[in-house]
């Protein structure tokens, strides 16, 4: 089975094509003893209302820093150097800290990789849900408690009223992630950033959480930025995809464009390195050779060139611009991408084992 078989026609629930978040030229850097490291170096993408954006890339490519930057939760020594974060017509980077605080958890929420440690161990989960409601909705304790129970039921927690008094350590990872989702959605935000929400969970629970996120998205016309390593999940739910490499964007576009007409060698490599069916004799995966570079020791030119199957001398000399390709999506315009010969080349490269995507 290939990735294409996992994709089904997208349910376009309430999609209006209206841009909810427009990230332009975001650049976030961290000052270290050895100098300034750009964890995110000029990325552009946008999220439409009611759509799911999949943000993929290897560890350390800047996915989490991107998401934390959107909420302006980058703590010193990190800082957002440049860019615009246009959320619903306003640049988040121009808001003062109080306005920003009102937005967080209210209009933009975030859930994290480790659900159990994302909950405060000394308070019951009900109390923590109530606090969010008291904070943003000025609800009284009683009303907040009722609403908290309702939210717990909404995210599929059985026996919610009794569970309100449970402490985080008594919950399984899946349950804790449900509680986190309930907290994040308590104030009906427009954008949810899910930073690898299923990484710490076992496989059956992963499915449930992704299903839940999709359900919630449909119900609230929510936009989701889904950060993940799991291309299978992205294939299943994402409307659009941003592929990142070493803090820079490799490719951004509609999910179908990325999966069927990818233009960047790195995207190609990612797609080739996963298989979603049973292993068939004689069929090989094609992992990307090597490891991602350290951000403080980026190779010259295109950061991907030492691992790239298509590398040519020009790749060492210049950093490819991010631009449109004929199919309509944007891509780091390196020579194979521009020439549009990626798929052709690839078919020749792995003639026997190649699968058509």
């Amino acid at each position, binding site marked *: 089975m290939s990735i294409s078989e996992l994709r089904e026609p997208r349910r376009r629930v309430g999609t209006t094509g209206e841009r909810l978040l427009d990230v332009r030229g975001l650049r976030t850097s961290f000052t270290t003893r050895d100098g300034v490291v750009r964890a995110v170096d000029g990325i552009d993408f946008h999220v439409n209302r009611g759509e799911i954006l999949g943000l993929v890339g290897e560890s350390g490519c800047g996915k989490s820093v991107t998401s934390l930057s959107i909420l302006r939760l980058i703590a010193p020594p990190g800082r957002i150097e440049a860019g615009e974060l246009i959320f619903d017509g306003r640049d988040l980077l121009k808001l003062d800290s109080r306005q920003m*605080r009102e*937005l967080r958890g209210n209009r933009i929420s975030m859930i994290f990789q480790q659900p159990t440690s994302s909950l405060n161990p*000394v308070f019951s989960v009900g109390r923590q849900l109530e606090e969010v409601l008291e904070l943003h909705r000025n609800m009284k304790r009683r009303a907040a408690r009722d609403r908290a129970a309702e939210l717990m039921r909404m995210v*599929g927690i059985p026996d919610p009223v009794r569970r309100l008094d*449970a402490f985080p350590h008594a919950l399984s990872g899946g*349950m804790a992630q449900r509680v986190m989702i309930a907290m994040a959605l308590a104030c009906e935000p427009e954008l949810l950033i899910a930073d690898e929400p299923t990484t710490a969970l076992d496989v*059956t629970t992963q499915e449930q959480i992704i299903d839940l996120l999709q359900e919630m998205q449909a119900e609230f016309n929510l936009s989701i930025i889904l950060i993940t390593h799991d291309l299978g999940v992205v294939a299943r739910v994402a409307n659009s995809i941003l592929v990142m490499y070493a803090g820079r964007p490799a490719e951004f576009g509609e999910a179908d464009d990325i999966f069927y007409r990818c233009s960047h060698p790195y995207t190609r490599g990612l797609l080739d390195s996963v298989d979603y069916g049973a292993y068939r004799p004689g069929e090989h995966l094609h992992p990307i050779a090597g490891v991602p570079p350290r951000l403080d020791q980026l190779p010259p030119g295109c950061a991907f060139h030492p691992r790239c199957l298509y590398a040519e001398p020009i790749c060492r000399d210049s950093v490819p611009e991010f631009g449109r390709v004929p199919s309509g999506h944007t891509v780091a315009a390196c020579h194979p991408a521009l020439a549009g010969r990626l798929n052709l080349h690839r078919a020749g490269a792995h003639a026997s084992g190649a699968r058509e995507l």
Partner: protein
Amino acid sequence: MASTAPLAEQSLDQPLVARPANLWRDTLRNLLGQRSAQAGLVLLGVVLLMAVAAPILATHGETTNMLDAGETRATGAVRNAAPCIHLLGCAASKSQHILGLDSNLRDEYSRVIYASRVSLEVGFFTVGIAIIIGTVLGAIAGYAGGWADNLVMRVMDVLLAFPALVLAIAIVTVLGPSLINAQIAVAIVGIPVYARVMRASVLSIRERDFVTASRALGASSYDILLRRILPNALTPLIVQGTLGIAGAILDVAALSFLGLGSQPPAADWGSMIGDARNVVFVAPWLVLAPGAAIAIMVLGFNLLGDGLRDALDPRLNR
């Protein structure tokens, strides 16, 4: 809003909780299961009983001179009189004084009983002040970082650089000798310990995921510090505070022994030892009785503190 029905697979994911855990109940259960904590609680129970029931337990007034109470030399009202207990064969003609009389003809036993009130109050007041100030300073230092951290912690280092008692003596010398000033002095000396404990907790807790998570949900710095970090930092503070009470009682007793704390005629274990130090060979009971009382109380707090540390330690808990 319509709520979605729970998924069918839910039962797989359902943890088996009989009833929700309760931090305080768990802690209490753990505490009561420990020998040392049990012993500490018994000892402190004795002291607490002394303090609460002092008027009932005491045979005489705290500051009553026995001559004023109608006794005479003939009934045994002499300076540093030895204990006279009728049950143990003391002549019936003499009036009964379980621990004898001190040099001012006051009943030593009654004074020891009454003085437990002073020591308890001293312990809680002193540590209370030190914890409040130390926690605030430590929280600011740990949370703000940068120059604020440096400023606060360097001042704390200076305080720590002095031997505690010497610094306390210096402070009392400036403020003037009295029980309250002795307590203030000991509290000031105690601040750095709590500031350091709090700062360390804040530094580690502020990096925890749930702090980032609540910030992502819109909590302000104030909320984070007070409602996320402080409750999680309470454990080491409670333990340190309990152990600190013992130290504070000892320090104030030492100041009183030197005449810089509790002033006559008030009963206080430290000053009682100090007053009787010249007659330690003539009337050792005058030194031993308040000394034993101090030891019991300090031991009680130390045992309880150790027990609390174990009871509150999550690594031993579950």
